[in-house]
């Protein structure tokens, strides 16, 4: 088993990176790897509560993040600096996450076998 970290850096809508990254998360879990998911920069918006995507004719995939636990993915890390820079707090997020600072996240990345950033 290898340690995979998926790093989400981009906003959920406006480009397809977030949605297709989520597909990689699910497949990695299906391969029974040690999967963690990190949210940095605009990627923290992927976890924002209350997404309404009807007006942009796009599927709202935020509920999937809440379902990750069912796939035994419970290591969701949000970089606290990115969250704070966007005026957000943990209560604004759709699911329980671990808030960690930039230095701690860097350390965590150092421990991974595979880091996939989208």
């Amino acid at each position, binding site marked *: 088993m290898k340690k995979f970290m998926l790093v989400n850096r981009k906003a959920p809508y406006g480009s397809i*990176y977030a949605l297709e990254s989520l*597909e990689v998360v699910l*497949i*990695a879990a299906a391969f029974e790897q040690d999967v963690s998911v990190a949210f940095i920069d605009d990627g923290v918006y992927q976890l924002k509560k209350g997404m309404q995507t009807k007006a942009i004719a796009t599927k709202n995939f935020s509920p999937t993040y809440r379902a990750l636990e069912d796939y035994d993915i419970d290591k969701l890390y949000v970089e606290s600096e990115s969250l704070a820079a966007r005026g957000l707090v943990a209560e604004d997020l759709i699911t329980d996450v671990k808030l960690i600072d930039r230095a701690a996240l860097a350390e965590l990345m150092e421990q991974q076998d595979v880091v996939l950033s*989208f």
Partner: protein
Amino acid sequence: MKIAVLVNEGPYQHQASDSAYLFCVAALAKGHELQRVFFYHDGVNNASRFTEPPQDDRNIVARWTKLAEEQKVDLVVCVAAALRRGIVEGSLAPGFRISGLGQLIDSGIKADRLVVFGD
């Protein structure tokens, strides 16, 4: 070292696929093994056999094909990302094959390094 590469951007729009290709060539020249190149997101457009750049420009798709044929590199296009963008079996340039995301995870497991090229 056993290296795998992930390409997340299409040809020409971004430098990512150029950089990925040049990295592959350099890695092979240094004697490393290239386990697989996996194409995801708009990266699947690197596989389109309908690509015809102007003659004075590099042919990115043909370059990948040549790499596959001469160095026996496994070029894999993600099926879900491909179908979403109108890339089907019949659109593939020689040397590419369509398969699932599992092949990307497989690369992560088997390769010593998985190097990501994106925007």
